């Protein structure tokens, strides 16, 4: 055991700083230090989590003392246990981690003695941090026959709880209730992983005790799912489990903790039933919730000889058949055990079938023939599971079944009430699969599609699903479908939409669409736009499908846009009139409606709504139509005439530019985004109408703002456009910082304005001091953040800078930093630290100038943007400027309080420091040594090697 003198020497060193303290404990290997250090007060008070008031974050300090305990736990388990039990409680999850590791190194009977302490940590965030450690401990204890401790930890670890209460959220006037789900104390991934690992060990070692435990955990979890049902408030609903209890592909996506618990309980039961037989069934079926019945049925199906009497009793109870949640397991149980029932017991089920369905709820939706068909199908499905036993029953049953069989044929996946296939719902009237539709000729396909029988209840499944398949088929073979597209008239809107969507995708993907087929496609489109738009059609069960031709019209608008825009399979010029006749009605479409614009049905901003609404897409198509005309050889001669050569376009553009005729901000946004294109088409017309694009009247201010916002956000700076729009730019400089901050944007209009202005400065369109309404006014009004964007923008574009522009940019920086100096640097942090962006390669300025500017910024703020790029650049200059590079690095380290960046900077820092240490310049050398020690004090031990071969005399120590 180290003597007191050595202990005192150690304390003398470790008290100097945290790095020493950590180094000492991390390097202790012998357990002999444990008692003397404990006697000096160590291992008693773990560090608590640290709460950061500013970021509201929590950090969990390492505790070198607990790490030492875990390393020596195998050598001195009893002493380590005693110390852990006497230790103050903590919420520090890193300490919990170490102590759990300690438990894993002790013999199980000793680990078991700290189980109460371990359980007490589970409600701290600890378990979220290190769930696998807790899981390992369960397995370790169980394997070591410490069953009581293992089960105690298991219960605490896997119990579910409701973390968030139910809450109502109103989105676009629709109230959505988020029902709380039972949640685990840690990540669902780990919940599953750990349970899969510990379940077999617990089943083996704890036997029926483990089954009882998991029944209890699952029962408590199911209780948490209690809900009142809207239709029957007096009844309570409880979660009844995934589609199948056995492993089944239908269970995909059923990986919530409660599902994981269900599968775990099933596995334990399966492992125990061979040994404990009926006891297992009793334990499970003793619980009241449906899920336990389902697990019981599953076990009875798989191990039907364990309790045949019980199974017969269940299957002769009519209550068993009423509960729909039992359908899947009951189906299999009937299939395997129905033959074991006595005739009178079988009659219970047959009478249940004979009684039929309760027709009342169906009357709201179906006519009497439909209800009767529904009932016959229901009966058929009930018979399906017992069909092999029907031959032994009276003729009547046999005959009924045969009739139903000839009416409905084979049922796919009869053991499920609902079956999900390839992401498309398919119920009891399955549409033809993709494979089946692929094998059909076009005529057969059209005939099939026309004859599809749908009800409101099946509309979603059948029509939407088939529409999706039709799109896929068209995409795979666009010419075949396009050639015959006129024959798709009269079909349901989602089917026509699917076909046209497929053609559009094929053109977009350059899949060899033959332009000769544009004619039949356009004819089909023409037929659609001629249909009454809001004709009453069936509504899907969920009301989500196209109730009119709206979606198909949107698809057509997109198809036309693509057809005018594409370079390969574009619409032949000869169809100009036909194409316009299809397009024009779409520019008159009511969508976007007032409701959509006001956010009642969507939350799109105007620019997004413009590309997601029929009229918006149609306006885009009009623009591409104009460009398409200009692009065409026949159109070239007309190019100089601008919009005069296409009066139909001019008329539409002028109409929708009038806010009294088109009130839509989405359409106004189109004019902003497409402004440069419109200038390209007809500059004179744009010049004449520029006040209409950005109307000055107060009543139309929203239109002006929307057009500007879309323009500035989505267009590149262009000197030609700038000349046209100088007045609007000047107005917008005056409006800086006046935008609503509530709106979510991917960028801010003022940031974009800053970038445009910088671009014009770069291009010598404007100067720093004139005209007054641009940069001088901008810098008076813009915030530090916005100004930061100007510096950043220059940095991002320096790669394009030639020698002539560099003095302009240096001039800008010098003036800004001088201005900042005169204002005592208050409110310049963002702008000046953005200087780091100027180090993005290739660095175009003189090295010394760059270093001097960098030092100025770092002395002020101890940080700079793009720090890793800056350090990389410094490392390339370390030979030439050893002292300056170390100085910059020192300042950056000082500013890097959290120490997160050092790992990223490491290689470049090594280069800077090693160069300086080897350098003859004493100042560079000494500063580097000081910084290396400083880095060590911050916990970066990898820099220690830099000091190898350094003299250790006092002078070097203190430089």
């Amino acid at each position, binding site marked *: 055991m180290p003597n007191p003198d*050595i202990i005192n020497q150690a304390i003398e060193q470790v008290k100097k700083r945290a*790095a020493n303290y950590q180094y000492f404990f991390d390097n202790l290997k012998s357990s002999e230090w444990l008692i003397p250090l404990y006697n000096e007060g160590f291992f008693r008070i773990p*560090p608590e989590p640290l709460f950061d008031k500013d970021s509201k974050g929590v950090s969990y300090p390492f505790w070198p*003392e607990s790490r030492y305990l875990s390393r020596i736990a195998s050598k001195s388990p009893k002493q380590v246990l005693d110390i852990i039990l006497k230790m103050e409680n903590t919420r520090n999850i890193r300490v919990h981690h170490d102590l759990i590791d300690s438990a894993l190194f002790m013999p199980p009977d000793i680990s078991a003695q700290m189980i109460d302490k371990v359980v007490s940590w589970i409600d701290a965030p600890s378990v979220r941090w290190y769930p696998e450690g807790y899981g390992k401990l369960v397995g370790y204890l169980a394997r070591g026959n410490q069953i009581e401790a293992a089960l105690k930890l298991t219960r605490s670890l896997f119990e579910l709880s409701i973390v968030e209460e139910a809450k109502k959220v109103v989105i676009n006037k629709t109230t959505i209730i988020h029902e709380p789900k039972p949640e685990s104390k840690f990540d669902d991934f780990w919940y599953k992983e750990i349970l899969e690992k510990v379940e077999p060990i617990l089943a083996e070692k704890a036997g029926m005790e483990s089954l009882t435990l998991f029944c209890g955990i699952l029962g408590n979890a199911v209780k948490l799912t209690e809900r009142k049902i809207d239709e029957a408030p007096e009844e309570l609903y409880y979660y009844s489990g995934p589609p199948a209890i056995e492993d089944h592909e239908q269970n995909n996506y059923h990986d919530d903790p409660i599902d994981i618990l269900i599968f775990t309980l099933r596995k334990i039961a399966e492992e125990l039933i061979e040994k404990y037989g009926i006891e297992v069934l009793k334990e499970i079926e003793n619980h009241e919730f449906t899920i336990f019945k389902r697990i019981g049925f599953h076990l009875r199906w798989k191990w039907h000889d364990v309790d045949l009497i019980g199974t017969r009793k269940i299957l002769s109870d009519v209550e068993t058949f009423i509960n729909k949640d039992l359908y899947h397991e009951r189906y299999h149980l009937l299939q395997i055990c129905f033959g074991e029932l006595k005739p009178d017991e079988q009659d219970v089920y047959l009478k249940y079938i004979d009684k039929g369905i309760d027709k009342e709820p169906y009357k709201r939706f179906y006519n009497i023939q439909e209800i009767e068909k529904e009932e016959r199908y229901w009966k058929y499905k009930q018979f399906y599971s017992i069909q092999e036993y029907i031959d032994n029953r009276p003729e009547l049953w046999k005959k009924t079944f045969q009739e139903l069989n000839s009416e409905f044929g084979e049922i796919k996946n009869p053991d499920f009430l609902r079956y999900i296939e390839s992401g498309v719902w398919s119920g009891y009237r399955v549409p033809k699969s993709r494979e089946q539709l692929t094998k059909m000729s076009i005529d057969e396909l059209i005939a099939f599609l026309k004859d599809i029988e749908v009800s409101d209840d099946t509309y979603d499944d059948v029509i939407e699903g088939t529409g999706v398949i039709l799109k896929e088929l068209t995409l795979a073979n666009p010419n075949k479908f396009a050639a015959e597209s006129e024959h798709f008239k009269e079909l349901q809107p989602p089917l026509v939409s699917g076909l046209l969507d497929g053609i559009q995708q094929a053109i977009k993907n350059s899949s060899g669409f033959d332009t000769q087929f544009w004619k039949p496609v356009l004819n089909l489109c023409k037929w659609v736009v001629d249909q009454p738009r809001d004709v009453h059609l069936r509504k899907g069960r969920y009301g989500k499908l196209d109730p009119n031709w709206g979606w198909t019209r949107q698809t057509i608008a997109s198809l036309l846009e693509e057809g005018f825009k594409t370079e390969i399979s574009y619409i032949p010029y000869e169809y100009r009139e036909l194409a316009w006749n299809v397009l024009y009605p779409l520019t008159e479409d009511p969508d976007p409606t007032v409701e959509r614009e006001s956010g009642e049905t969507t939350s799109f901003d105007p620019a997004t709504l413009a590309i997601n609404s029929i009229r918006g897409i149609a306006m885009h198509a009009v623009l591409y139509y104009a460009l398409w005309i200009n692009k065409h050889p026949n159109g070239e001669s007309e190019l100089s005439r601008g919009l005069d050569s296409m009066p139909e376009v001019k008329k539409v553009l002028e109409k929708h530019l009038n806010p009294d005729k088109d009130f839509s901000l989405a359409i106004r946004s189109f004019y902003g985004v497409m402004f440069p294109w419109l200038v390209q088409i007809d500059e004179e017309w744009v010049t004449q109408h520029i006040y209409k694009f950005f109307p000055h009247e107060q009543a139309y201010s929203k239109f002006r703002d929307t057009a500007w916002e879309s323009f500035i956000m989505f267009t590149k700076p262009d000197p030609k456009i700038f000349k046209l729009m100088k007045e609007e730019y000047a107005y917008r400089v005056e409006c800086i910082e006046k935008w609503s901050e509530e709106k979510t944007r991917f960028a801010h209009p003022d940031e974009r304005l800053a970038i445009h202005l910088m671009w014009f400065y770069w291009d010598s369109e404007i100067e720093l001091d004139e005209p007054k309404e641009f940069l001088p006014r901008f810098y008076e009004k813009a915030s530090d953040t916005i100004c930061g964007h100007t510096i950043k923008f220059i940095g991002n574009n320096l790669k394009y800078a030639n020698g002539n522009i560099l003095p302009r940019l240096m001039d800008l920086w010098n003036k800004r930093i001088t201005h900042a100096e005169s204002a005592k640097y208050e409110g310049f942090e963002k702008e000046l630290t953005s200087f780091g962006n100027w180090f993005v390669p290739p660095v175009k300025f003189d090295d010394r100038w760059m270093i001097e500017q960098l030092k100025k910024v770092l002395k002020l703020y101890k940080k700079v943007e793009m720090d890793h790029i800056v350090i990389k650049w410094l490392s390339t200059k370390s030979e030439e400027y050893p002292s300056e590079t170390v100085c910059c690095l020192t300042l950056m380290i000082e500013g890097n309080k959290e120490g997160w960046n050092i790992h990223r900077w490491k290689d470049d820092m090594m280069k800077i420091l090693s160069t300086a240490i080897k350098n003859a310049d004493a100042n560079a050398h000494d500063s580097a040594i000081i910084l290396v020690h*400083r880095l060590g004090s911050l916990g970066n031990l990898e820099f*220690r090697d830099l000091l190898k071969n350094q003299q250790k005399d006092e002078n070097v*120590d*203190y430089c």
Partner: protein
Amino acid sequence: MEQVEKINIQIQLSSKQLAFINALEDKSPELAKMYLGSLYVMNQNENPDRYAQAAHSIREFINAIPKIVQVPIEALNEDMGSKVNDLQNEWNKTCQNSDCYKNNEWEGKIDSHLRKLLKNIFDFFDWKNKHRPKRKKEIISTFRELDGSNRQLPEKLEEINVNKWMMIRDYFIGIAHHKTIDPSYILEFNNWLAELENFLLDILIPRTFNDFEIIDKIIEEGDKSA
């Protein structure tokens, strides 16, 4: 730096002191000046009160440190002496004015004068109870800020450092108050000064990896003796 070197010639600074003053200058030129001033006074051989005056400067230097790292201080600005003096004044006034104090004895029902005194005594002890922990907290915050590593020592070790710091401070306050003026204490004075420099140098210019080598040796020794 030029100024420092000039003084170096005059008062013979060790390299350690030079590094110390440079480190102080980095933090605050004002602080470096205060410390340098105390060294200056110490070297005025013709000045008979130089140690007390130097100690006074050092006390001021020690008191200024929290301010330069922007640690708000309250307890460190308060002192027991003035609190006791206030209480004594109150005591004297009460003895004169209270009806409860007669013939050097206290008797009768508590009157308003005595009630006020008791309240002041209560406040004094309350202050005294809170003062030390508060002062300790302020010193710890100062060390953490000076260190700047954002990594904390356990409270127990920080407490050792606080106690050491207070011992150094108390020593210089004692000298400043002429409690020890015997010239034979020069050596002791220099030792305390070296303690102060070493203490702050360990924080301002850590020699982390040199310390690690020492720790390696301590562990080796400890393992051998185990």
